[in-house]
């Protein structure tokens, strides 16, 4: 039988899914055990017990100086910045995208501008953000907003344009004004696409967040990673990276479920 016609069975599929993860972990712990065997003070590949001790210290023990649980404080600070950045960018991207995608008079000035703006590397203007917005929360949130809004807006503009003109004409024959047409036809049809676009920019949003926190912050997951880097504390860095990955994956999963629940028509309408 040809390879392209062979499909994994139900039970086999799960094993195939887990296999690469298991292999990666296996390779890591073999390497870790070997290095620690050679030199018990090696810091590069900490063992599971070293990492769990670090997690225990950061997540379940009060910090002696501040009295906070650092791990949870970092998570809360980062998630708050990320949520604000994503929220503002989603609203701005949605408004800009729909305006540019459904109103020809606004598309003329907006589309080229968005195209150019999306080419500006956000990290290159990070210093400007720090100068303009200060070193506080605002500049970190703004980096995320500036980084992903043009991407979201351009994607949603495209989606708004892809709505068949027949539907827009139909809505007009049903008595819609420009405003109600956007409200009842364009907006509901672009919202599921917004959730998908958010899933796609989630990675960039985390990137900008960690970058901003690494440079100027007093808490946050990115701050902690770059702080303990000085002591080569891989036993802290690795669990933090795993935690960030888990959070990002959960957010992706959440957005996907939300799309399914809130827009049950979307999957069927695509065909």
């Amino acid at each position: 039988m040809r390879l392209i016609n062979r499909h994994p069975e139900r039970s086999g599929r799960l094993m195939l899914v887990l296999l690469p993860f298991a292999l990666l972990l296996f390779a890591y712990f073999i390497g870790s055990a070997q290095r620690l065997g050679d030199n018990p003070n090696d810091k590069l590949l900490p063992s599971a017990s070293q990492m769990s001790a670090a997690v225990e210290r950061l997540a379940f023990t009060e910090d002696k100086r501040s009295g906070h649980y650092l791990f949870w404080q970092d998570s809360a600070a980062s998630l708050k910045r990320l949520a604000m950045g994503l929220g503002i960018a989603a609203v701005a991207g949605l408004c800009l995208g729909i305006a540019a995608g459904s109103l020809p008079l606004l598309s003329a000035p907006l589309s080229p501008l968005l195209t150019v703006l999306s080419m500006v590397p956000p990290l290159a203007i990070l210093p400007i953000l720090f100068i303009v917005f200060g070193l506080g929360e605002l500049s970190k949130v703004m980096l995320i907003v500036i980084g992903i809004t043009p991407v979201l807006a351009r994607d949603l503009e495209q989606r708004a344009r892809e709505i068949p003109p027949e539907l827009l004409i139909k809505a007009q024959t049903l008595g819609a004004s420009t405003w109600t047409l956007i409200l009842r036809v364009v907006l509901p049809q672009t919202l599921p696409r917004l959730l998908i676009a958010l899933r796609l920019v989630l990675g960039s949003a985390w990137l900008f967040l960690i970058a901003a926190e690494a440079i100027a912050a007093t808490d946050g997951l990115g701050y902690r990673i770059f702080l303990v880097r000085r002591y080569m504390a891989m036993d802290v860095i690795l669990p933090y990276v795993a935690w960030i990955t888990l959070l990002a994956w959960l957010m992706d999963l959440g957005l996907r479920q939300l799309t399914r629940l809130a827009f049950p028509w979307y999957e069927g309408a695509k065909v």
Partner: protein
Amino acid sequence: MSDKTSSAFIQVNNLWQQYGDQVVLERLNLSVNEGEFCTLVGASGCGKSTFLRLLLGQERASRGQILLGGQPLAAEPDASRGVVFQRYSVFPHLSVLDNVAIGLELPRSPVLGRLFGGAKRQAREQAAQLLGKVGLGHALDKYPSQLSGGMQQRLAIAQALIMQPRVLLLDEPFGALDPGIRKDMHALLLELWRETRLTVFMVTHDLAEGFSLGTRLLVFDKVRLDPHAPNAFGARITYDIPLNSDRRAQRAAVDALPAHLSGKLQPAL
């Protein structure tokens, strides 16, 4: 060919439509009385769909004008003219019921585009009644993607009729349907046409459909043709054939009745 009474419901005067060098329609004259069922046939690219778009207000004519009830036609689509396209006629994000009820909500709610409470319930009841009539009473809560092609077109027709338009424009509405379903749709369309005072324009590729449905068949064709410049001349109506005289007579008889009687024969949609 066409009688030019000033009292005609739709009057088309010397209509031209051209895109750049390409002339699609030229010197088109037509007058149509209220309640006529016009079927538009002709070769592909001969301008019948263009004519429909002009009637809809989706495009503006290069020259000439169209009068609806003596007034120049609004230059954009509005609630006086309903339309059913071959595809993409219904909103994929609304249930069958809301697809029709939205036509009652949009004109009444200029700010939010939706009704609430009792007004919403009333709109939905009215929509459900019409949907029952076109044979979709069992599918009110489904999304259009869960319906067959024929059912989707039934929905599109109900959606157009809820507005009680004066003119219904159909652009190859049954072109993508199986022959059996198509026959059912013909029956439905004729039944609805009989019950309302609707003026229908229907573009079709199917000559048999054109002959059997219409009270008037309009054939679009080019009368002049320059083989070196095929786009230099546009099409006009070359044949204007009255059809199905029994149905026309029936319609005329109903129209002749006193208003209080004929009103009862036309159930409000």
